[in-house]
């Protein structure tokens, strides 16, 4: 294997792959047994061993060998090579890591990768289509809705959900329903303007 493949950035970690491929550990679905057989919970796997997790990210399936502690945010950034989602606080407080899970916005820093298995994850990298920016990305540029840009991927993911939820119908509602995304540069007025600009196009599409 070349060093290139071994780089975690490429989403492929040789050591983890070898352990995972040996089939030592998979997340075990527990099901109560039917009939009169005495029900026994299966033994938990060795907590130190990586688990094979298949994530659906922006429409692609990615099988990664991950420590059980890995959050969706770390899986994206450290293992899938998708660094668009940002880590601000790592404690659910800032919104920089916001992604869509089955279309709903969540903070990926408090979501375990194992628990996201089988669900559709959408990140900032999955928004543009055929080289054309998503209307919300375009609106953030048009309205100058950022300064340093660190909070922006989270703001954009959250803003798309805010519109789809029907919460972008007034400035007050936009402010309330965007409050989970902190902007240290305080680009808030322009963020409200961007959400307003993109909302009709998103609702139409």
């Amino acid at each position, binding site marked *: 294997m070349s060093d290139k493949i071994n780089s975690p950035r490429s989403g492929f970690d040789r050591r983890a792959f070898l352990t995972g491929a040996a089939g030592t550990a998979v*997340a*075990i*679905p*527990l*099901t*109560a047994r039917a009939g009169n057989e005495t*029900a*026994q*919970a*299966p033994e*938990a*796997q*060795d*907590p*130190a061993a990586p*688990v094979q997790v298949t994530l659906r990210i922006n429409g692609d399936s990615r099988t990664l060998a991950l*420590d*059980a*502690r890995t*959050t969706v945010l770390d899986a994206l950034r450290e293992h899938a090579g998708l660094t668009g989602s940002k880590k601000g606080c*790592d*404690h*659910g407080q800032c*919104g920089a890591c*916001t992604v869509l*899970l089955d279309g*709903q*916005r*969540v*903070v990926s820093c*408090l*979501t*375990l990768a*194992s*628990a996201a298995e089988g669900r559709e994850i959408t990140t900032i990298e999955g928004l543009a289509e055929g080289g054309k920016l998503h209307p919300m990305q375009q609106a953030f540029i048009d309205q100058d809705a950022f300064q340093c840009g660190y909070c922006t991927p989270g703001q954009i993911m*959250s803003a798309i*959900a*805010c519109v789809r*939820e029907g*919460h972008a119908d007034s400035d007050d509602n936009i*402010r*309330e*329903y965007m*409050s*989970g*995304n902190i902007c240290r540069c305080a680009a808030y007025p322009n963020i409200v303007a961007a959400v307003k600009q993109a909302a009709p196009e998103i609702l139409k599409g």
Partner: protein
Amino acid sequence: MRSFSYQRASDPQAALQALAVTAAATTPLTEASSQPLAGGTTLIDLMKLDVMRPERLVDINPLAGNWAQVDLDGGNLKLGALAHMSQVAGHAEVRQNYPVIADSLKLAASPQLRNMATLGGNVLQRTRCSYFRDVSYAECNKRNPGSGCAAMDGFNRMHAVLGTSHQCIATYPGDFAQALIALDAAIEITSKSGPRSMSFAEFHRAPGDTPAIETVLAPGELISGFAIDGRWPRSVYLKVRDRQSYEFALASAAVALDLQNGVINDARLALGGVATVPWRAREAEAVLKGQKLDDALAERAADAAFADARGRQHNAFKIALGKRVVAHALKKAIAMEI
């Protein structure tokens, strides 16, 4: 974070089995080596801080198929423990018949967190006391029984003025629980010995001599849901905080009234942000019953609610603030058009 194993339970029976493996009834629930994982917004956060250290997580989200209902049937409300906060906050019938419930959830946390967090996990959320959350402080009776309390003479602006003990003054931070306790909700619990139901008012335990024990739930038991009798269309949740949105309460009030010709036939009042546990203010309710609300009565009820309050160096302002929140919430409830 310490390492742990992760397992997914596909139904309640499987979850109970997985949790039972290491459940010892004598351990405080929060120290149990197996913990159910719902939204993870309390659990994963506290595991990252090394405040909670389970060895095994049992993911109970697949139980949503059994336990995520929002049912208004025959004038009663049933809420499943795996229902998400956002789902209930945005439910049209809940909003119309139980505004205090919808608003207690809508005004909590952020849209992202409300999409993740479940009702069962919500009532088990843990205090935001900064000394509790930071393991570099040795003194915390809740985290480390017998070690002392760094907040007593520390920075205690966010701490409780009601229900405190010589061991712990940590505030119960949640909002939804105030709505539940005001409406006399029942909590439904499932264990290996079967389901049971109890008054939600008896679910949380004041810190007393054992602040590490926060509820009567035992390791290996699961919350399956909540039940409320009757409808409470004239009800409000008022929350005052340091910023307008996405912040825990400094003081909050859950109010539900039943009016007959302008006279208060029944009154329910619970307080948040000011007490160590979800706090029902029965003395204030007694002041209100059989009366017509005016400014003087609202003030008397507010005084009654905080009669036993005890402030410390930085949090005494919560007594005056809490009284104003109560009076304001009562007036808002009276003014509602239903």
